[in-house]
């Protein structure tokens, strides 16, 4: 069971899964940051939202009444990533901002791909950009010392969501959620599997 919320997208109300909503919000925020002119950006974002609402409408039926993460990812494929929206004269200023700021919307997840137990330490380390071994040592000490480490770990295991989709994994690393990054993530995973199977 998941939590779903209502959104107003381009004037239409949709029911959308909570995680799908966050991915959609991250995507729209990134797109919006591509445009520096405030007035123009409002108009463009409105057009884009209306278009996404149109696309969502096509997916809602009597049997499927909620927008899911898959829908959002499909829509991102159709619309394209931030680099597709890149401006011509202003492209250079956007690239400059990339250099100075964190590249994406960052969330704390559990990392299912590099976990020992529940991926708690991996996920939290990704959020703070530190080496997971630091947190792991701290937890072991806390567990041996007071036993409270175990309780805290279990609480975090329950509370932190697992990063299942490619978009979530990118959010966890603070990477931009766009088509080319998602493609890169799939390719890396494919190559890892190949390596592990010695193909």
């Amino acid at each position, binding site marked *: 069971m998941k939590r779903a919320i209502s959104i107003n997208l*381009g*004037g*239409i109300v949709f029911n959308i899964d909570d995680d799908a909503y966050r991915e959609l919000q991250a995507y729209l925020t990134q*797109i919006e940051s*591509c*445009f520096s002119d405030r007035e*123009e950006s409002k*108009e*463009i974002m409105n*057009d*884009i939202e*209306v*278009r996404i*609402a*149109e696309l969502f*409408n096509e997916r809602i039926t009597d049997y499927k009444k909620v927008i899911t993460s898959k829908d959002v990812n499909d829509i991102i*494929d*159709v*619309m*394209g*990533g931030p680099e*597709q*929206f890149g*401006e011509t004269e202003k492209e250079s200023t956007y690239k400059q901002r990339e250099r100075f700021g964190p590249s994406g919307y960052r969330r704390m997840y559990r990392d299912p791909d590099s976990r020992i137990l529940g991926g708690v330490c991996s996920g939290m380390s990704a959020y703070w950009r530190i080496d997971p071994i630091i947190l792991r040592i701290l937890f072991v000490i806390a567990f041996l010392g007071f036993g409270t480490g175990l309780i805290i770990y279990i609480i975090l295991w329950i509370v932190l969501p697992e990063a299942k989709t490619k978009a979530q994994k990118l959010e966890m690393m603070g990477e931009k959620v766009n*088509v080319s990054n998602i493609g890169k993530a799939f390719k890396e995973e494919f190559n890892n599997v190949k390596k592990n199977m010695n193909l």
Partner: protein
Amino acid sequence: MNLDNTKAQMKKGVLEYCIFAILSKDSRYTSDIIQELKEAKVIVVEGTLYPLLTRQKNAGLLSYRWEESTQGPPRKYYELTDKGKSFLKELDNSWNDLVKAVSLIRNKKQTPEKQK
């Protein structure tokens, strides 16, 4: 990768021209413009269109009106302005010149080596 980049740049260059060409025949909805560009394989993703259409409108080359729709939110119905029509004529000439130039370069015969 570089080849894809170059190809993408070529398409990006003619995208504006294609939009004017589409609208020169008839006024169209945004989604129709996107559909035709996709069919002609000039674009793969839709995102590029929205900022482009808005900028052309703000530059006075296009104008739109809202049309109500029973199936969803109201839609923009674009058409070329007079300024847009003369812009298109200029681009027509520019395109013809470009095609001629590339043909010339591609078909240029090699000068024979001088016999000693």
